């Protein structure tokens, strides 16, 4: 086991400087700086990033392996409803059971995606586009087309309490303690980064994304791996759904519409290519942070919504264009072997 090597760090550095630039930009105005550059605000930003970041971990695996998952937003909504429903049963499930069942629901949907993609060899874009509607519809169905609130009874509230802690913010004006969800995200990101870089499974992912035919030739069970990858991605979406539930204290079947595009944007800003074979968890996390900082900063600058949308759009294009340019330059002046 070794720390990620130099070239990985340099690759992640691009998005990282982007993040610094965005933070610096919002700190220019002294009025805004006062409230923007505070521990409390960064706690808020981190908390707001959790959902996108957790889902982005799974999406990174999927994109690295050359796929894409458009159903993530719907799965987040569905699993948040599932969590709320489980907690609203006459005998509410224990928090641990809710957590596992929610994640399993996500994993199950991911697995269905993976099975169709691997089994019928269909484009992931289409399969997950279809699943996007199916999961959203199922969420509405389970939620009876409404938000699901946990009943205000002692037994139920007791079961909910630990889950609500996941995203609960204490001491708003200090950085610590950061909500549990942030630590979980960090832990999972670190873990999956290791898996991606340092294990055979991670290598297989890169191999499949880089050239599927070769991966098959090298004895990788490509179809199985795909099922696994989408299931893992779904599990992360499920966990994100749990966080969403914890944040809203309700299951909302209409939440997270279009979230998949934010997640994909985060992964791509973080240096992944949609044609597969490149990408890193660290980059995706930074990408997710960039988006959250932009949103937070625009609110603090009192920018109208439209300006925020335009700027985020420009940042997406610009970040990826920069990345392309950096890479083409790197190819022209290859650095010494690391």
């Amino acid at each position, binding site marked *: 086991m070794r720390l990620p090597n130099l070239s990985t760090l340099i690759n992640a550095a691009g998005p990282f400087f982007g993040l610094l630039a965005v933070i610096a930009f919002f700190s220019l105005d002294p009025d805004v700086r006062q409230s923007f550059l505070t521990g409390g605000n960064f706690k808020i930003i981190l908390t707001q990033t959790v959902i996108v970041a957790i889902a982005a971990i799974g999406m990174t695996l999927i994109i690295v392996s050359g796929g894409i998952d458009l159903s993530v937003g719907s799965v987040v909504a569905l699993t948040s409803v599932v969590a709320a429903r489980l907690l609203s049963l006459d005998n509410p499930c224990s928090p641990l059971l809710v957590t596992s069942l929610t994640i399993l629901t996500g994993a199950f949907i991911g697995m269905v995606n993976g099975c169709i993609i691997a089994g019928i060899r269909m484009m992931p874009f289409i399969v997950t586009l279809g699943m996007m509607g199916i999961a959203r519809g199922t969420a509405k169905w389970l*939620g009876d*087309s409404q938000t699901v609130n946990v009943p205000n009874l002692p037994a139920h509230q007791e079961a909910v309490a630990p889950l609500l802690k996941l995203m609960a913010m204490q001491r708003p004006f200090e950085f610590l303690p950061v909500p549990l969800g942030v630590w979980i995200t960090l832990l999972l990101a670190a873990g999956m980064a290791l898996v991606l870089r340092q294990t055979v499974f991670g290598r297989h992912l890169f191999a499949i994304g880089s050239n599927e035919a070769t991966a098959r030739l090298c004895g990788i069970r490509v179809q199985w791996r795909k099922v696994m990858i989408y299931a893992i991605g779904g599990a992360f979406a499920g966990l994100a759904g749990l966080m969403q539930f914890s944040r809203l204290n309700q299951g909302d079947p209409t939440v997270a519409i279009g979230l998949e595009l934010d997640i994909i944007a985060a992964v791509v800003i973080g240096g992944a290519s949609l044609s597969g074979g490149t990408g890193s968890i660290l980059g995706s996390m930074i990408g997710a942070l960039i988006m959250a900082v932009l949103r937070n900063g625009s609110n603090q600058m*009192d920018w*109208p*919504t439209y300006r925020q949308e335009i700027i985020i759009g420009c940042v997406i294009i610009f970040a990826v264009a920069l990345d392309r340019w950096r890479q083409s330059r790197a190819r022209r002046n290859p650095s010494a072997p690391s």
Partner: protein
Amino acid sequence: RQQTEDTADGRKRLTIAVIPKGTTHEFWRSIEAGARKAEQELNASGTPVQIIWKGPLREDDRDLQIQVVENFMARKVDGIVLAPLDSQALVAPVENATKAGVPVVIMDSDLKSDQYVSFVATDNYKGGQLAGDHLGKLLNGTGDVILLRYAVGSASTEAREAGFLDALTNRHPAIKLLSDDQHAGPTRETAYQASQNLLNRYGAEADGIFCPCEPPTIAMAMALRDLGKAGGAIKMVGFDAGSKSVEDLKNGDLQALVVQDPVRMGYLGVMTLVEHLQGKPVEKRIDTGVHLVTRDNMEDPEISELLNPPIDQYLK
């Protein structure tokens, strides 16, 4: 499924489509309860009626709501009760339906047309004024205030926002607005993010906050609690009686709620339409009332029923 079907006793059964703006918020659930209440009463009184409750595929998409109206028109239902997502966009389909012999009752939000049977709604502007005046009173006429708007292009909330702002400028000129151009967006999550970010910037200065409907009201209270400013440090007036908001009011995290009477709105919407179909004259504008609810009056039986409408009685 059938436009007019003869029931056992030979009377025609009326099919009425009720089209809300969306389905997820409790407000619409109460409207549905009101419509169902009307359905039950009418059926009991010997006027067979069937209510079809149908929200648009994506909430807040005007074109998709138009499609729902058109499709019901093609189905030749006996009448439509509609909460238009937009006062202008729904004009043509409503006029088409009227022309095609499908009368339409408008509820909740206005429509820029006169070819409907009746407009059954809260006076939203007045609701906003109530909120503005109450906040002014809470702050003794001075202080800094935040308005977190709902979403782009929503007529009813814009009327509330306008009423609120007018009340402040006309009657409480010393109150300063810190921010009035941020939108909460359609879901509780988007509203929560916007609230957190706004409070982080202005939380120290703000004295009062107004939110014009359910999602931002709940989300802003959550953000205030996060910040430790709930319970009166920052006075907050919200809108609509979401069960969470009612709880917040009870806990003192909210100082006041402006509530409408959605059950009545749904009920009157259907009743008015049926009366029209039976050939009786109906009022062109029916106000279903707004009420300012504070901790002091929330136990009054009348208000209590508004806050906890007996929904389950009507929805199976």
